[in-house]
């Protein structure tokens, strides 16, 4: 059933302001086999104080999308081949300033955004924490890097140049040795104590009991859940406007998962931040997201409010995912797995990425790349030819796929 469409627009007047918007992002990787289109034209919005769940199976490009926000993709072999990621910081929104394009801002500006305006927590906290540094040393880095002015003010008065440099982590080896000498040593210790206070406060926020003791530990001495709390504390330390969570609970016990999710939700409210939550777990995403974007093979298949997506999935892939999830509410029956595998992403032809596995695919699906169309209320968009009108594509009505009919 096709619905008359219009270009994707923000027609709602009560929607919260934008924090970030991804516009036609393309990230490719040069490999021996060719140019892999890991992310091939992805667009979505993230709004203030909202959690957007980015869902997809392994290889869908969701992690690459997330990492692109902070420009973490290594340049050989990765390449930012197109699109923009516009970001409005809190300040920009207040003053009405223009957004910045995270993919092109100069490096010093990028370093200011990273860890400060936008923070990221990673999948396996055991691997994302440096095993050779104590918790204190690692969390302190964020404060030194972004809050050095704050650390210096107050009791110092006229802080010496050396202390200033120490606060900003810009000292050389000789300078660090000098800081051990008596006259400067006191000031350096005072600085360190202030940082410690900040670190302890950050750890406290994530409900870590006895933060002072934890601060002296090494990552391998902590449990998985504890490590993830440390990561979260580190990420929220500078009160970022956007938190990107890349599958933060995948490596954790199911029992701990729930606690961490709850913690993220609470902290999000307290810090009034937006969250981009990456996951392959549908049921999890449903619990915590306000909006969902479903990714497949480097493109967005469908996006909208969580309840809309789950009650009325529009894209055949999304429908397949729902059917494949053996949730308690479903009638028992065959586990409906989606046939086929994720397609080759090297120099893909212009076609729907899903058409080789789609139960409703027709010939047209192998010839045209569907665009994201606004199809439902509250910004429910889907990229499937079944929702286009024949006039839009210039074809016969019989050429369009029909979701009520299976072709395989």
């Amino acid at each position, binding site marked *: 059933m096709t619905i008359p469409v219009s270009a994707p627009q923000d027609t709602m007047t009560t929607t919260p302001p934008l924090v970030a918007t991804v516009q036609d992002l393309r990230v490719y990787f040069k490999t021996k086999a060719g140019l892999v289109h890991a992310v091939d034209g992805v667009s979505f919005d993230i709004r203030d104080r909202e959690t957007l769940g980015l869902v997809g199976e392994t290889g869908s490009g969701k992690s690459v999308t997330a990492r692109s926000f902070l420009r973490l993709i290594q340049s050989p072999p990765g390449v930012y081949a197109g699109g923009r990621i516009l970001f409005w910081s809190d300040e920009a929104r207040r003053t009405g300033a223009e957004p910045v394009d995270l993919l092109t801002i100069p490096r010093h500006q990028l370093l200011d955004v990273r860890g400060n305006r936008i923070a990221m927590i990673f999948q396996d906290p055991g691997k994302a924490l440096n095993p050779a540094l104590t918790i204190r040393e690692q969390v302190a880095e964020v404060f030194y890097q972004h809050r050095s002015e704050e650390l210096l003010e107050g009791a110092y008065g006229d802080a010496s140049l050396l202390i200033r440099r120490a606060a900003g982590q810009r000292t050389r080896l000789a300078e660090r040795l000098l800081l051990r000498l008596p006259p400067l040593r006191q000031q350096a210790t005072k600085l360190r104590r202030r940082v410690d206070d900040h670190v302890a406060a950050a750890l406290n926020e994530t409900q870590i009991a006895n933060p002072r003791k934890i601060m002296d530990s090494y990552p391998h001495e902590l449990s998985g859940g504890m490590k993830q709390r440390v990561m979260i504390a580190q990420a929220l330390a500078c009160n970022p406007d956007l938190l990107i969570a890349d599958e933060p609970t995948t490596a954790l016990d199911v029992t701990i998962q729930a606690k961490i999710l709850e913690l993220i939700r609470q902290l999000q409210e307290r810090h009034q931040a937006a969250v981009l939550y990456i996951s392959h777990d549908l049921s999890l995403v449903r619990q915590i997201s306000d909006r969902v974007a479903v990714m497949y093979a480097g493109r967005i298949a469908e996006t909208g409010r969580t309840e809309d997506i789950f009650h009325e999935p529009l894209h055949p892939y999304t429908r397949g995912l729902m059917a*494949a999830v053996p949730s308690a509410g479903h009638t028992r029956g065959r586990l409906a797995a989606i*046939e*086929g595998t994720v397609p080759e992403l090297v120099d893909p032809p212009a076609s729907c990425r899903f058409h080789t596995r789609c139960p409703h695919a027709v010939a047209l699906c192998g010839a045209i790349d569907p665009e994201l169309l606004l199809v439902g209320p509250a910004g429910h968009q889907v990229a499937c030819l079944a929702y286009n009108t024949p006039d839009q594509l210039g074809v016969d009505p019989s050429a369009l796929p029909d979701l009520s009919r299976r072709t395989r």
Partner: protein
Amino acid sequence: MVDVPAPDSFTVSVEGPWIVRLRRLFDVSRKVLSNPTTLVGLMIIIALLALAALAPLLTTPNVPDAYQMPRDWGVRDAPPGTPDHLLGTTSTGGDVFYGVLWGARTSLRLSVIVVGITVTVGTIVGSLAGFIGGKLDEILMRAVDVLLAIPELIFALAIAAVLGPSFGNIIFALAVVFWVKYARIIRGQIIHVKQNEYVDAARVTGDSKFNIYRKDVLPNSITPVMVQATLDMGGIVLTAATLSFIGLAEAGLAEWGVLVSDGQAGISAGKWWASTFPGLMIFLWALAFNLVGDGMRDVLDPRTEGR
């Protein structure tokens, strides 16, 4: 949880085991050769082998022993470019070019013999230790530890010194020193296979120990042994040259180490060629085998060099 669904169908391969092995060999060789540095190494090896093979054709073999440097008191210390002496002559009139070529032959014989002996001995010892296990294994491994405690060159030096200066003794000394690594490789493979479940399955079906050895241990050990052997081809010549340089080979032998040593005295007088060219050959030989060995190791035993 949504997982990646299984593929449509299986393709069952009906190819025989040898074809599968050959194809694997082909694929591996291609991968190894795709690395440019490995390719360079291989080309150098081919060039060196060509020099060795063509020695009797490119130069007139010395009588009575072609492996002794010829002496021609008329053309002592001739610089490179002298007619008939492309790379010059030594202080006793020996043609440096002759030394380079016949030295290649000497190195080839030496390294092939030593590698042959060491691989065999190492395999035997390693197999005994691995299969019989228990006390014998303990004793043999302690012995291996002891042998590894003495640095290779020094050990070979001592053995050759005690036996007396001769090239044959050098070969023997090197064989004694270099077999140890192979024993470890083979033993390691056997232990690994022993721990593997499918061997228990094989034993249940009645496969004799020897068959397990033949079908599981040996094929899997070939690759690390090949890598080590390639690297050793280079290392053995290097060590042998060092021993000859110190003076443990017969005087006047057409061997690169001996030539470098002989040429040493003339350096202060500006006669650089007698030492430089033979030394360059040693370097090229070791370099080539190291490049190829490394290339092989990268392919056959890859460590994560990035995504």
